[in-house]
């Protein structure tokens, strides 16, 4: 799990173009949206693409992302459970 969390952090930094950030700067238990990292609806869509492309998880509705993207840890747990690649 910790390995997946680190991998995810790297991917998030890359796909969201969070310049100057390192995985250590992201608290895996902090919210990704609003407070915490402060991401928005477009970032959520980018994370949906990331999950589909890298882990084969397809979300039908953007609203499903709200629960999954609560934190990096929640996201990693979801991926662990649902990944197809």
């Amino acid at each position, binding site marked *: 799990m910790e390995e997946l969390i680190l991998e995810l952090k790297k991917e998030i930094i890359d796909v969201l173009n969070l*310049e100057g950030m390192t995985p250590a700067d992201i608290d895996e238990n902090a919210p990704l949206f609003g407070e915490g990292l*402060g991401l*928005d609806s*477009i970032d959520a*869509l980018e994370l949906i*693409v990331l999950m*589909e492309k890298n882990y084969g998880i397809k979300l039908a509705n953007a609203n499903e992302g709200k629960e999954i993207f609560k934190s990096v840890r929640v996201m990693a747990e979801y991926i662990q459970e649902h990944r197809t690649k």
Partner: protein
Amino acid sequence: MDRIVVTGTGIITSLGAGKVETLRKLRAGERAIGPIRHVQTKHAELPVGEVPYSDEQLKELLHYRSSETITRTSLLGRVAMREALDEAELLTDHGERVVFISGNTVGGMEKSEQYYHDFLTNNDRNEYIALHDCGACTDIMAKEFGGRFDIITTISTACSSAANAIILGANLIKEGRADVAVVGGTECLSKFHINGFNTLMILDKEPCRPFDANRHGLNLGEGAAYLVIESEAHAARRGAKAICALSGYGNACDAFHQTATSPNGEGAFIAMSKALADSGLRPEDIDYINAHGTGTGNNDECEGIAMMRVFGEKVPPVSSTKCYTGHTTSAAGGVESVISILALVHHFIPANLGYKDQIEGHTFTPVDHVVENVELKHILTNSFGFGGNDSSCIFSALDTDNKSVVVMSDNRCYVQSAAQISMQQPLSEAWFEDPIVPTQAFNETIEPNYSPYIAPMAARRMGKLLKRAVATAVNALGAHGMPEAIITGTGLGCIDNTEKFLTSMLDNDEEFLHPTYFMQSTHNTISSQVALHLKCHGYNCTYSHRGTSFDSSLYDALVQMRLGLIRSALVGGQEEMTPAYFDMLGKIGYWKQGAVDTETLRRAEQGGAISGSCSLNMLLETNCDADTLCAVDGMDMLYEPDVEALGATADRLLQRAGLAKEDISAVVMGLSGDCDNDRVYRSFARHYCPQTPIIWYKHIFGESFCASAFGIYVGAVTLHRNLVPAHLLYNRKDNLCNPTHILVYNHFHDKDHSLILLSK
């Protein structure tokens, strides 16, 4: 002045070609949303509002040869435009000054996405390269009507493009520049924007249900619609029958988010309020609202809240007609204006099909069935675009009493400041003393350090051009207050991100696409990003009309200042160049080959210029201070004028400023080293002012669709510094001291021309 009336309308959508068919289906409550047929995409699950004619059938309808090189956007536009001009009895020329303003975003993308591989690897489809941009689409449409038009331009504010075209047209009539304006928009479906909207996850797999609690997004549509507008007196003079009045309009920016609407619908609220104020009507006078109503969760909720803020407990009957046609994006403002006018004239309210349950928090419900025999005096129609480009228009029955009050302002207008990022030292005037002299056709942009202007989190989604635009905006604004308008010219928009989206769509078989790239491919993302950064809710517009994109923006600002609508405006020109697009344009003769030097450019013996990016923002105000760069004493734009007409226009500008030709210290011209381009400039100089020193600038800033912005910039800076350095002088070798009045002349392909008079 007397009010503005509509004397012609034309429309084509999935409902069919022309008003008769449109009206019949609207009244029958017949949706025209179905499976996609003409666009080759794997997204067959997404229903669309497709025009029921193939390109071939549209050509037949227009009596064109099937081999004609033309994009679908232009074909649709021509069908609608012809109907509008025909009804207004304008197909033959009686000497009216007619302007043509068209809204468009897709441009030639529907062909580019099919031929992109050819563009990159062979010469089979080169004729479509020049048709890619939005302005080309307008240009082709204008061509059918010969020398009919006085000015043509293209507005690209995504889904409010056509509404903003209506607004500019009306302003040009009020200001006295035009007798008649042909205004509206056109858009065809493309694989590019079907996939783009799909990445935003806002496309419904069922026919859309605007304002329904269980709505699931929008259906894309395609179509075109144009209105012919003119003053009531002008229509009466030429015996044209008025259909209704355009009694008010408003444009505002939500300045909240690149795609989402603010929770309280601020931009929509301001746009509707401005339109009401402009018309002199009270909220209770509005009998029907043709809503933007896309069917997305966000739009319908927030538009509803904005309507409740404007109209209180008595929201008038509302419907969104996108349930009939799909969302025709750039054409929507025109399509829904024509539908509103049909409703007004035929006394019915089109249904908001598919509605079942009220949205939580809304106090109104939309009209869910067609209502006949209803007297409609005033109709408000909304058009909102990505980036919060929100506009509203009000159409009124002729037997209502509403006079437009126009109080012309005789305030002078000044260029207060300007900032540039280009191949020269960024955010600096180092080019004035010590220019970087390019030695090849492709030139890299020198990027400044953006961190003083843009926070890292805000920068995460910004492509280079967006960063440049924001940095030049903040720099130009300096300590000045919030501008009342932000107007941006960009021929191609963020072409880098457009290419990224297009390439990955083609390479990955329409999978794993990034919404960020799509979002930034809409041209108005630049102007709205600047507004977002400054939190500016004022007028916001984007012009994408090839080599006069910046000129159109400046003209819009000046016209609004003369009409007393604004006192300040941030006017920008934003263009970037990618290696791939550079190569494509190179194939059709845009660039010089091999090593380049200034003398080769000056001689202009062959075709081709050198390329340069352009990011420039300038602040215009109606008052001046010690740091003011110069005054703008006049401007005009012309479409396909001869050299006599250009001279007469220059004379008129000088006359109005109380000047004579001899008072011009220098003329700034866009000489680029391309023989065809430069011939036009030389001919004007020879004809009009053979002895006047010529300033050029493309030898150090390069050529791009927005390069003309540098012409005005260079003119302003030299006036401010009391000196034209020798390196900027085309036809003399020593410095020119104490310039007092400078004429700036720009043209694109000898079609679109502009003249601007700058004074110390």
